[in-house]
């Protein structure tokens, strides 16, 4: 059958580093799933980490699966073959749990499709004891409500420790109550694990159409489900055996996570908010993971991953060490994704140029200083220019700049500011190279739960398109500047999912039943499908996405906690509108957002000195003490809970 589908290597496993799963009746069998193609799902670090941790346990076994492309899906359905694991081609329905990683809203219908292909009823209420439990983790689970009717359990936060507890609970159930056809007891027991949310054990309350919140219906389910946070990344040097696929995938290189969490406080950034505090991996461990990884995998490129890698304390030394350590071998490339312009100094630029050059992407996010104050991305234009200067001076010819549009308080001046920045970057490049190129990539802003912008009314499709057109017109005659953008229509659907409530589940099911899978693929995305389904279920996209929410409104994720105090977020939202910045709490005193204080943990940094150069996201020149922006001082008027 595989000989008849496109890219069959997607379905054969056999990666370097793949585990040899051995099933046994006493073991809890996990099928780790990514609801998109193999090429996109395989590199997912979260799944790879759990794959190893689970297979190391004597009481668990884990395999992997990815969304079959529709050509294979057709064949599977025609021949009545179910979803299978790529490791041993075992039927998905034979596993005790199917655990999905949710990283993108537009993959939700793929999750439904995969559950269905596994031969499992899509709605959790219809499942029996002999069906696998359907679980989900990953960033999107901070508002799992659109998927609440389809998921048996949801994991909030870091999965490294909680998978062990889930395995134990499921193991006990499997050995006993499951044989009697009981499914309720395991859900109750799972709800008692910190970090686990069982949607069916919470009931929504409405007053007319006003949502009043979700309340637990059994004693085991907590009224507020807290996220899990591992205190120290050093205890988890995973993946030890990163998977090396036989066929090409995204991020096809060695990836080593250097820290988790971010305290820059960018207000649009959900990842930064929900993964606090910062936990850096010790430099020595990073070095050995890189050296071992390169030796074992045969890759010649390593990416040091995190939300903002240039913020790693001692980053210049680390990159220098990695490049040196490899001195006698073939030359390697070091990639630093998510570079902060204010941390990309000449030092790093010269270090990287020893290695072969990967593309450079900077993310100023907004076109004017005013706009960047609103979003708390406190980098100055000078910071960007000196970073771009350093890049071009060190031999790069292409620079990519990433921006958001549709941000709170955004005016056309802010949009045109993007064009202005691009023009100036090209000018800087001309001094160093004949044909510098700047790619401006623009994404439509989707407000996310657990960020200060969770109350903001998203821009409409028309408004986003108008701004993109404005920018395109402004850059049309700029030689060397290309503008790329994310489809605003997809942004709308992402917005509906991002802050939707349980009623959106019906919409997901309708869209999926009408063939709306792989919606994150341009050629498959179908807005009318979504809008029709919304209308059929009597739901108004405007209400879900475009209106501003009030302080009083109960949000669909208020029963979940990422540690952040809601009044901290609200205050930060008011500060945003007042264009007041918030400093990085790693180097300045704590303002009690709740992420550490609530869980008695703290930042772990590998080196005690803040990275040198630039404004370090504080908007101040750290050398001179000059502050161009009013900064909220810790404890003063930040309301603390």
């Amino acid at each position: 059958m595989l000989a008849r589908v496109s890219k069959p290597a997607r379905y054969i496993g056999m990666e370097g580093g793949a585990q040899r799963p051995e099933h046994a009746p006493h073991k809890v069998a996990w099928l780790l799933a990514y609801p998109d193609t193999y090429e996109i799902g395989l590199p997912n670090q979260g799944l790879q980490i759990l794959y190893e941790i689970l297979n190391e346990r004597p009481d668990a076994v884990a395999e992997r699966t990815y969304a079959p492309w529709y050509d294979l899906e057709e064949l599977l359905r025609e021949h009545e073959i179910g979803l299978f694991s790529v490791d041993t081609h075992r039927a998905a329905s034979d596993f005790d749990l199917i655990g999905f990683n949710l990283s993108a809203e537009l993959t939700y219908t793929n999750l439904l499709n995969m559950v269905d292909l596994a031969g499992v009823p899509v709605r959790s209420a219809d499942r029996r004891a002999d069906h696998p439990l359907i679980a989900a983790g990953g960033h999107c689970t901070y508002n799992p409500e659109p998927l609440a009717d389809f998921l048996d359990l949801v994991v909030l936060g870091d999965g490294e420790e909680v998978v062990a507890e889930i395995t134990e609970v499921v193991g006990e159930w499997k050995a006993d109550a499951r044989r009697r056809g009981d499914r309720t007891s395991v859900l109750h027991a799972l709800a008692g694990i910190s970090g686990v949310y069982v949607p069916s054990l919470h009931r929504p309350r409405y007053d007319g159409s006003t949502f009043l919140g979700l309340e637990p219906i059994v004693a085991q389910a907590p009224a507020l489900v807290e996220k899990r946070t591992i205190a120290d990344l050093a205890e988890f040097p995973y993946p030890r055996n990163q998977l090396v696929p036989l066929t090409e995938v995204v991020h096809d290189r060695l990836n080593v996570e250097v820290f988790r969490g971010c305290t820059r406080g960018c207000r649009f950034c959900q990842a930064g908010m929900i993964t606090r505090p910062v936990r850096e991996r010790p430099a020595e461990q990073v070095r050995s993971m890189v050296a071992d990884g390169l030796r074992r995998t045969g890759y010649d490129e390593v990416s040091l991953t995190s939300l903002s890698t240039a913020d790693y304390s001692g980053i210049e030394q680390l990159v220098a060490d990695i490049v040196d350590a490899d001195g006698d071998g073939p030359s390697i490339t070091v990639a630093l994704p998510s570079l902060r312009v204010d941390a990309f100094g000449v030092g790093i630029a010269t270090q990287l140029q020893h290695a072969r050059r990967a593309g450079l992407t900077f993310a100023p996010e907004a076109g004017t200083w005013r706009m960047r104050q609103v979003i708390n991305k406190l980098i100055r234009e000078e910071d960007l220019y000196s970073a771009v200067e350093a890049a071009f001076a060190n031999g790069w010819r292409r620079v990519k700049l990433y921006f958001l549009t549709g941000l709170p308080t955004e005016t056309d001046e802010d949009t045109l500011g993007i064009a202005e920045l691009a023009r100036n970057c090209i000018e800087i490049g001309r001094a160093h190279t004949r044909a510098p190129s700047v790619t401006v990539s623009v994404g439509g802003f989707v407000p996310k739960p657990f960020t200060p912008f969770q109350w903001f009314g998203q821009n409409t499709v028309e408004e986003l398109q108008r701004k993109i057109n404005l920018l395109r017109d402004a850059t049309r005659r700029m030689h060397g500047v290309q503008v790329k953008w994310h489809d605003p229509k997809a942004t709308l659907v992402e917005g509906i999912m991002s802050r939707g409530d349980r009623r959106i589940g019906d919409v997901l099911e309708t869209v999926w039943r009408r063939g709306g899978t792989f919606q994150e693929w341009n050629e498959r995305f179908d807005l009318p499908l979504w809008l029709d389904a919304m209308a059929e279920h009597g739901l108004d996209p405007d209400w879900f996405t475009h209106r501003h929410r009030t302080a009083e409104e109960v949000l669909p994720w208020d029963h979940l906690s990422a540690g952040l105090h809601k009044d901290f977020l609200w205050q930060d939202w008011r500060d945003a509108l007042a264009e007041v910045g918030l400093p990085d709490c790693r180097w300045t005193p704590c303002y009690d957002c709740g992420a550490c204080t609530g869980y008695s943990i703290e930042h772990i940094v590998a080196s005690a000195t803040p990275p040198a150069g630039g404004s370090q996201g504080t908007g101040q020149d750290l050398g001179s003490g000059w502050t161009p922006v009013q900064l909220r001082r810790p404890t003063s008027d930040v309301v603390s809970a």
Partner: protein
Amino acid sequence: MRIRIRYRKLGKVRFTSHRDMARCWERALRISRLPIATTEGFSPRPKMHFGLALSTSHESMGEYLDLDLRDPESLEVDLAELPGRLSAVLPDGVDIDAVAIIDRSEPSLQEAVTSCAWQIEVPGVTAEELRPAVDRVLSASALPIVRERKGKPVSDDLRPGIVHLEVLDADPDDLVSTGAVLSAELATQPRSVRPSELMAVFDPPLTEGRVRRIHQFIHVDGATREPLPPGAPAMVPTSVGAP
């Protein structure tokens, strides 16, 4: 020093493409730390010279790859242990079965190889049913086909490219095979005949099941040899139906 490697590609790994395999080889060579010569320039690549591409999902008993080793370090490489050393770091199902030093003046694999032997499973038919169809193909004076060349359809005759064709007798021990098995030798020069093109000239056209390249040959001056120089270990072919 240039070495020629003969290897097998069998089992699930057949679903990787030629390009995937090239990348697997690159990584395997880096892991092995063999002294591979590299191209000059800004981003040096290892000097690997692949033979004829094998289609995705076809197996092979005889794939070839030429590698340039850096001198003088190459003298320290133990060629006898090379097959084991490389097989260990290549994907399961890719196994080196012979290595030999060749002269740099030898023509490249793509130039030198003149034909390939294939075994092609034909599901749903018996050997008896297939024999008359094979006879018709062999007795045809011409087998016109239309192929695409630079986006334009061109007509061509496939018959001269079929060097040998027969139906294998069913192997009673072979439980994998579900139909008849064709054994074919197809020319690779002046242009390569693909198994799928052969299947298409049958009337009615045949569907290919599992396909395995059995060997590659160089015909020069009436003599036939394989791409490895004389003295290299001979290959033990196994039939397509065998696991």
